Protein backbone atom coordinates (compact mmCIF):
# COMPACT_ATOMS: atom_id res chain seq x y z
CA UNK A 1 0.00 0.00 0.00
CA UNK A 2 1.26 3.42 -0.78
CA UNK A 3 2.50 5.72 1.93
CA UNK A 4 0.12 8.16 3.48
CA UNK A 5 0.99 11.75 2.83
CA UNK A 6 -0.26 15.03 4.10
CA UNK A 7 -3.39 16.34 2.53
CA UNK A 8 -3.21 19.78 0.93
CA UNK A 9 -5.62 22.19 2.63
CA UNK A 10 -7.56 22.70 -0.59
CA UNK A 11 -8.78 19.11 -0.47
CA UNK A 12 -9.89 19.10 3.13
CA UNK A 13 -13.53 20.01 2.57
CA UNK A 14 -13.88 17.38 -0.17
CA UNK A 15 -12.30 14.82 2.05
CA UNK A 16 -14.51 15.71 4.97
CA UNK A 17 -17.58 15.27 2.83
CA UNK A 18 -16.46 11.81 1.87
CA UNK A 19 -15.43 11.01 5.40
CA UNK A 20 -18.79 12.16 6.69
CA UNK A 21 -20.63 9.83 4.40
CA UNK A 22 -18.29 7.00 5.26
CA UNK A 23 -18.85 7.54 8.97
CA UNK A 24 -22.44 6.67 8.36
CA UNK A 25 -21.51 3.47 6.68
CA UNK A 26 -22.25 0.06 7.96
CA UNK A 27 -18.59 -0.78 8.30
CA UNK A 28 -17.72 2.10 10.54
CA UNK A 29 -20.65 1.39 12.79
CA UNK A 30 -19.45 -2.16 13.06
CA UNK A 31 -15.96 -0.96 13.92
CA UNK A 32 -17.31 1.38 16.59
CA UNK A 33 -19.27 -1.44 18.14
CA UNK A 34 -16.23 -3.68 18.02
CA UNK A 35 -14.04 -1.11 19.75
CA UNK A 36 -16.68 -0.55 22.40
CA UNK A 37 -16.69 -4.25 23.23
CA UNK A 38 -12.89 -4.46 23.26
CA UNK A 39 -12.56 -1.47 25.59
CA UNK A 40 -15.29 -2.79 27.87
CA UNK A 41 -13.58 -6.17 28.18
CA UNK A 42 -10.11 -4.70 28.69
CA UNK A 43 -11.16 -2.16 31.32
CA UNK A 44 -13.57 -4.57 32.99
CA UNK A 45 -10.91 -7.24 33.38
CA UNK A 46 -8.35 -4.68 34.53
CA UNK A 47 -10.59 -3.28 37.26
CA UNK A 48 -11.70 -6.73 38.39
CA UNK A 49 -8.09 -7.83 38.59
CA UNK A 50 -7.25 -4.67 40.53
CA UNK A 51 -9.93 -5.38 43.11
CA UNK A 52 -8.75 -8.95 43.58
CA UNK A 53 -5.16 -7.78 44.03
CA UNK A 54 -6.16 -5.10 46.55
CA UNK A 55 -8.33 -7.53 48.49
CA UNK A 56 -5.63 -10.18 48.68
CA UNK A 57 -3.00 -7.58 49.53
CA UNK A 58 -5.20 -6.27 52.31
CA UNK A 59 -5.64 -9.79 53.65
CA UNK A 60 -1.93 -10.48 53.47
CA UNK A 61 -0.92 -7.20 55.10
CA UNK A 62 -3.49 -6.88 57.86
CA UNK A 63 -4.72 -10.41 58.50
CA UNK A 64 -7.82 -10.61 60.65
CA UNK A 65 -8.37 -6.87 60.76
CA UNK A 66 -8.49 -6.61 56.97
CA UNK A 67 -11.32 -4.88 55.19
CA UNK A 68 -11.93 -1.82 57.34
CA UNK A 69 -12.34 0.25 54.19
CA UNK A 70 -12.65 -2.24 51.37
CA UNK A 71 -15.66 -3.90 52.97
CA UNK A 72 -17.56 -0.67 52.34
CA UNK A 73 -17.63 -1.64 48.67
CA UNK A 74 -20.11 -4.33 49.65
CA UNK A 75 -22.77 -1.61 49.62
CA UNK A 76 -22.42 -1.41 45.85
CA UNK A 77 -21.07 -4.88 45.13
CA UNK A 78 -23.51 -7.33 46.77
CA UNK A 79 -21.70 -10.31 48.27
CA UNK A 80 -18.32 -8.65 48.27
CA UNK A 81 -16.19 -8.71 51.39
CA UNK A 82 -12.49 -8.92 52.08
CA UNK A 83 -12.09 -12.66 51.96
CA UNK A 84 -10.69 -15.20 49.55
CA UNK A 85 -14.06 -15.91 47.96
CA UNK A 86 -15.56 -12.46 48.44
CA UNK A 87 -12.82 -11.04 46.24
CA UNK A 88 -14.08 -13.02 43.27
CA UNK A 89 -17.71 -12.08 43.83
CA UNK A 90 -16.63 -8.46 43.93
CA UNK A 91 -14.53 -9.01 40.83
CA UNK A 92 -17.63 -10.14 38.94
CA UNK A 93 -19.55 -7.03 39.89
CA UNK A 94 -16.54 -4.82 39.24
CA UNK A 95 -16.14 -6.30 35.79
CA UNK A 96 -19.78 -5.57 35.01
CA UNK A 97 -19.74 -1.99 36.30
CA UNK A 98 -16.37 -1.14 34.76
CA UNK A 99 -17.31 -2.66 31.41
CA UNK A 100 -20.57 -0.72 31.27
CA UNK A 101 -18.86 2.49 32.34
CA UNK A 102 -16.08 2.19 29.79
CA UNK A 103 -18.59 1.36 27.07
CA UNK A 104 -20.48 4.54 27.96
CA UNK A 105 -17.22 6.50 27.93
CA UNK A 106 -16.28 5.20 24.50
CA UNK A 107 -19.68 5.79 22.93
CA UNK A 108 -19.84 9.34 24.28
CA UNK A 109 -16.27 9.88 23.13
CA UNK A 110 -17.01 8.55 19.65
CA UNK A 111 -20.09 10.73 19.40
CA UNK A 112 -18.22 13.79 20.64
CA UNK A 113 -15.30 13.30 18.30
CA UNK A 114 -17.66 12.72 15.40
CA UNK A 115 -16.10 12.85 11.99
CA UNK A 116 -12.77 14.11 13.25
CA UNK A 117 -11.58 10.65 14.08
CA UNK A 118 -9.49 10.33 10.97
CA UNK A 119 -7.41 13.20 12.29
CA UNK A 120 -6.89 11.30 15.49
CA UNK A 121 -3.98 9.31 14.24
CA UNK A 122 -0.34 10.00 14.27
CA UNK A 123 2.13 8.99 11.70
CA UNK A 124 5.36 10.22 10.31
CA UNK A 125 5.24 10.86 6.60
CA UNK A 126 8.02 8.35 6.10
CA UNK A 127 6.17 5.54 7.79
CA UNK A 128 4.37 2.94 5.80
CA UNK A 129 0.65 2.83 6.35
CA UNK A 130 -1.48 1.35 7.79
CA UNK A 131 0.42 -0.86 10.21
CA UNK A 132 2.21 2.08 11.76
CA UNK A 133 -0.90 4.08 12.57
CA UNK A 134 -1.04 5.08 16.21
CA UNK A 135 -4.20 6.43 17.73
CA UNK A 136 -4.24 9.86 19.29
CA UNK A 137 -6.83 11.03 21.73
CA UNK A 138 -9.07 14.08 21.42
CA UNK A 139 -8.66 15.85 24.79
CA UNK A 140 -11.99 17.66 24.88
CA UNK A 141 -13.97 14.63 23.78
CA UNK A 142 -12.24 12.40 26.31
CA UNK A 143 -12.73 14.97 29.05
CA UNK A 144 -16.39 15.24 28.21
CA UNK A 145 -16.97 11.50 28.08
CA UNK A 146 -15.10 10.68 31.29
CA UNK A 147 -16.50 13.68 33.13
CA UNK A 148 -20.07 12.80 32.20
CA UNK A 149 -19.60 9.15 33.11
CA UNK A 150 -18.12 10.02 36.51
CA UNK A 151 -20.95 12.46 37.16
CA UNK A 152 -23.51 9.80 36.29
CA UNK A 153 -21.77 7.26 38.52
CA UNK A 154 -21.67 9.61 41.50
CA UNK A 155 -25.29 10.57 41.01
CA UNK A 156 -26.42 6.95 40.82
CA UNK A 157 -24.30 5.75 43.74
CA UNK A 158 -25.40 8.62 45.99
CA UNK A 159 -29.01 8.09 45.04
CA UNK A 160 -28.59 4.41 45.79
CA UNK A 161 -27.33 5.24 49.29
CA UNK A 162 -30.30 7.54 49.87
CA UNK A 163 -32.87 5.09 48.51
CA UNK A 164 -31.54 2.21 50.60
CA UNK A 165 -31.64 4.34 53.76
CA UNK A 166 -27.90 4.44 54.29
CA UNK A 167 -27.51 8.20 53.91
CA UNK A 168 -27.08 8.94 57.60
CA UNK A 169 -24.49 6.24 58.13
CA UNK A 170 -22.46 6.95 54.97
CA UNK A 171 -19.69 8.80 56.77
CA UNK A 172 -17.04 7.84 54.27
CA UNK A 173 -19.08 8.88 51.25
CA UNK A 174 -19.72 12.21 52.96
CA UNK A 175 -15.97 12.77 53.07
CA UNK A 176 -16.12 13.53 49.36
CA UNK A 177 -17.25 16.96 50.46
CA UNK A 178 -13.58 17.65 51.09
CA UNK A 179 -13.12 17.66 47.33
CA UNK A 180 -16.61 18.36 46.00
CA UNK A 181 -18.13 21.56 47.36
CA UNK A 182 -21.76 21.21 48.57
CA UNK A 183 -21.65 17.43 48.24
CA UNK A 184 -23.50 15.37 50.81
CA UNK A 185 -25.34 12.09 50.71
CA UNK A 186 -28.68 13.48 49.58
CA UNK A 187 -30.49 14.11 46.31
CA UNK A 188 -29.31 17.70 46.18
CA UNK A 189 -25.82 16.63 47.16
CA UNK A 190 -25.81 14.12 44.34
CA UNK A 191 -26.44 16.88 41.81
CA UNK A 192 -23.95 19.28 43.35
CA UNK A 193 -21.30 16.59 43.62
CA UNK A 194 -21.87 15.50 40.05
CA UNK A 195 -21.02 18.96 38.80
CA UNK A 196 -17.81 18.96 40.80
CA UNK A 197 -16.72 15.50 39.77
CA UNK A 198 -17.47 16.30 36.14
CA UNK A 199 -14.97 19.13 36.35
CA UNK A 200 -12.34 16.91 37.96
CA UNK A 201 -12.92 14.21 35.36
CA UNK A 202 -12.74 16.67 32.51
CA UNK A 203 -9.52 18.28 33.70
CA UNK A 204 -7.69 15.04 34.42
CA UNK A 205 -8.87 13.33 31.24
CA UNK A 206 -7.91 16.40 29.21
CA UNK A 207 -4.50 16.32 30.84
CA UNK A 208 -4.12 12.60 30.16
CA UNK A 209 -4.98 13.02 26.48
CA UNK A 210 -2.69 16.02 26.07
CA UNK A 211 0.26 14.25 27.68
CA UNK A 212 -0.42 11.09 25.70
CA UNK A 213 -0.55 12.98 22.39
CA UNK A 214 2.62 14.87 23.22
CA UNK A 215 4.46 11.68 24.12
CA UNK A 216 3.30 9.96 20.93
CA UNK A 217 4.84 12.79 18.92
CA UNK A 218 8.02 12.83 21.00
CA UNK A 219 8.49 9.09 20.96
CA UNK A 220 7.87 8.77 17.29
CA UNK A 221 4.72 6.80 17.43
CA UNK A 222 5.40 3.24 16.47
CA UNK A 223 7.76 1.35 18.72
CA UNK A 224 5.11 0.23 21.14
Amino acid at each position, binding site marked *: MSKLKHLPNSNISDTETIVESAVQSHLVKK*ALRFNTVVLAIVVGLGCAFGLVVMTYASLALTGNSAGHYLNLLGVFLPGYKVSLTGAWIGAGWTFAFAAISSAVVFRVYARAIGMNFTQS*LWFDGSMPAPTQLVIMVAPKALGLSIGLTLALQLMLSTTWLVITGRADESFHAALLANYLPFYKVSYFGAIAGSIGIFLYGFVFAYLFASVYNTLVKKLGG*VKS
Partner: protein
Amino acid sequence: MRRNDKRSTPERAPTVAFMIMTMFGRAHTFAAAGAGAIVCALAICVATLILVIKGAGPGYEVGPNLSALQLFWPGYSVSWPGAFVGALYASIIGAIGGFLVAMFWNFAHIVIVGAAMLNGDWLERGE
Protein backbone atom coordinates in the same frame (compact mmCIF):
# COMPACT_ATOMS: atom_id res chain seq x y z
CA MET B 1 -10.73 23.89 12.51
CA ARG B 2 -7.18 23.60 13.68
CA ARG B 3 -5.02 21.37 11.57
CA ASN B 4 -1.82 19.67 12.44
CA ASP B 5 0.18 19.07 9.32
CA LYS B 6 1.46 15.76 10.68
CA ARG B 7 -1.93 14.36 11.50
CA SER B 8 -3.05 11.79 9.10
CA THR B 9 -5.34 12.21 6.20
CA PRO B 10 -4.80 10.24 3.08
CA GLU B 11 -3.68 11.95 -0.03
CA ARG B 12 -6.63 10.57 -1.86
CA ALA B 13 -10.15 10.31 -0.62
CA PRO B 14 -10.28 7.83 2.25
CA THR B 15 -11.40 4.42 1.25
CA VAL B 16 -13.60 2.30 3.43
CA ALA B 17 -10.53 0.22 4.19
CA PHE B 18 -8.71 3.31 5.41
CA MET B 19 -11.67 4.30 7.53
CA ILE B 20 -11.71 0.91 9.17
CA MET B 21 -7.97 1.00 9.69
CA THR B 22 -8.27 4.28 11.52
CA MET B 23 -10.58 2.54 13.96
CA PHE B 24 -7.93 -0.08 14.58
CA GLY B 25 -4.95 2.17 15.11
CA ARG B 26 -2.58 1.02 17.80
CA ALA B 27 -2.40 2.59 21.21
CA HIS B 28 1.11 3.71 22.08
CA THR B 29 1.97 1.75 25.20
CA PHE B 30 4.80 3.96 26.44
CA ALA B 31 2.87 7.15 25.85
CA ALA B 32 -0.11 5.68 27.70
CA ALA B 33 2.18 4.67 30.55
CA GLY B 34 3.71 8.14 30.74
CA ALA B 35 0.35 9.88 30.65
CA GLY B 36 -1.09 7.50 33.24
CA ALA B 37 1.88 8.11 35.52
CA ILE B 38 1.64 11.88 35.33
CA VAL B 39 -2.13 12.03 35.81
CA CYS B 40 -2.17 9.57 38.72
CA ALA B 41 0.74 11.31 40.41
CA LEU B 42 -0.94 14.67 40.06
CA ALA B 43 -4.28 13.33 41.27
CA ILE B 44 -2.91 11.86 44.50
CA CYS B 45 -0.73 14.89 45.08
CA VAL B 46 -3.68 17.26 44.70
CA ALA B 47 -5.95 15.05 46.80
CA THR B 48 -3.39 15.01 49.61
CA LEU B 49 -2.54 18.67 49.48
CA ILE B 50 -6.18 19.73 49.54
CA LEU B 51 -6.56 17.94 52.86
CA VAL B 52 -3.27 19.34 54.14
CA ILE B 53 -4.24 22.89 53.25
CA LYS B 54 -7.74 22.54 54.70
CA GLY B 55 -6.28 21.09 57.84
CA ALA B 56 -8.19 19.68 60.80
CA GLY B 57 -9.36 20.95 64.14
CA PRO B 58 -6.98 21.03 67.13
CA GLY B 59 -6.28 17.54 68.34
CA TYR B 60 -7.57 15.88 65.19
CA GLU B 61 -5.54 14.02 62.64
CA VAL B 62 -5.54 15.39 59.10
CA GLY B 63 -6.99 12.95 56.54
CA PRO B 64 -7.15 9.77 58.63
CA ASN B 65 -8.94 7.91 55.84
CA LEU B 66 -6.62 8.88 53.01
CA SER B 67 -3.74 8.04 55.33
CA ALA B 68 -4.90 4.42 55.15
CA LEU B 69 -3.07 4.28 51.82
CA GLN B 70 0.12 3.86 53.82
CA LEU B 71 -0.95 0.26 54.25
CA PHE B 72 -0.07 -0.22 50.58
CA TRP B 73 2.38 2.67 50.24
CA PRO B 74 4.96 2.67 53.04
CA GLY B 75 6.09 6.20 53.82
CA TYR B 76 2.94 7.87 52.61
CA SER B 77 1.08 10.27 54.88
CA VAL B 78 -1.27 13.22 54.51
CA SER B 79 1.41 15.87 54.70
CA TRP B 80 3.52 17.97 52.35
CA PRO B 81 6.31 15.40 51.97
CA GLY B 82 3.73 12.60 51.99
CA ALA B 83 2.04 14.15 48.97
CA PHE B 84 5.19 13.68 46.94
CA VAL B 85 5.81 10.18 48.26
CA GLY B 86 2.24 9.33 47.29
CA ALA B 87 2.76 10.91 43.89
CA LEU B 88 5.73 8.63 43.34
CA TYR B 89 3.74 5.50 44.19
CA ALA B 90 0.74 6.67 42.18
CA SER B 91 2.94 7.36 39.17
CA ILE B 92 4.17 3.77 39.23
CA ILE B 93 0.64 2.42 39.44
CA GLY B 94 -0.55 4.84 36.75
CA ALA B 95 2.30 3.85 34.48
CA ILE B 96 1.58 0.15 34.91
CA GLY B 97 -2.14 0.73 34.40
CA GLY B 98 -1.67 2.84 31.29
CA PHE B 99 0.81 0.40 29.83
CA LEU B 100 -1.44 -2.61 30.49
CA VAL B 101 -4.58 -0.99 29.10
CA ALA B 102 -2.77 0.03 25.91
CA MET B 103 -1.09 -3.35 25.61
CA PHE B 104 -4.30 -5.33 26.10
CA TRP B 105 -6.12 -2.97 23.73
CA ASN B 106 -3.54 -3.73 21.04
CA PHE B 107 -3.49 -7.41 21.89
CA ALA B 108 -7.27 -7.69 21.73
CA HIS B 109 -7.32 -6.03 18.35
CA ILE B 110 -4.60 -8.26 16.97
CA VAL B 111 -6.22 -11.43 18.25
CA ILE B 112 -9.83 -10.63 17.45
CA VAL B 113 -9.24 -9.01 14.10
CA GLY B 114 -6.84 -11.78 13.16
CA ALA B 115 -9.31 -14.46 14.12
CA ALA B 116 -12.11 -12.66 12.35
CA MET B 117 -10.05 -12.29 9.20
CA LEU B 118 -9.26 -15.99 9.25
CA ASN B 119 -12.97 -16.65 9.58
CA GLY B 120 -13.74 -14.14 6.89
CA ASP B 121 -16.81 -11.93 6.50
CA TRP B 122 -16.63 -10.68 10.10
CA LEU B 123 -18.16 -7.43 9.09
CA GLU B 124 -21.13 -9.21 7.62
CA ARG B 125 -21.99 -11.14 10.73
CA GLY B 126 -23.76 -10.04 13.89
CA GLU B 127 -26.53 -8.01 12.34
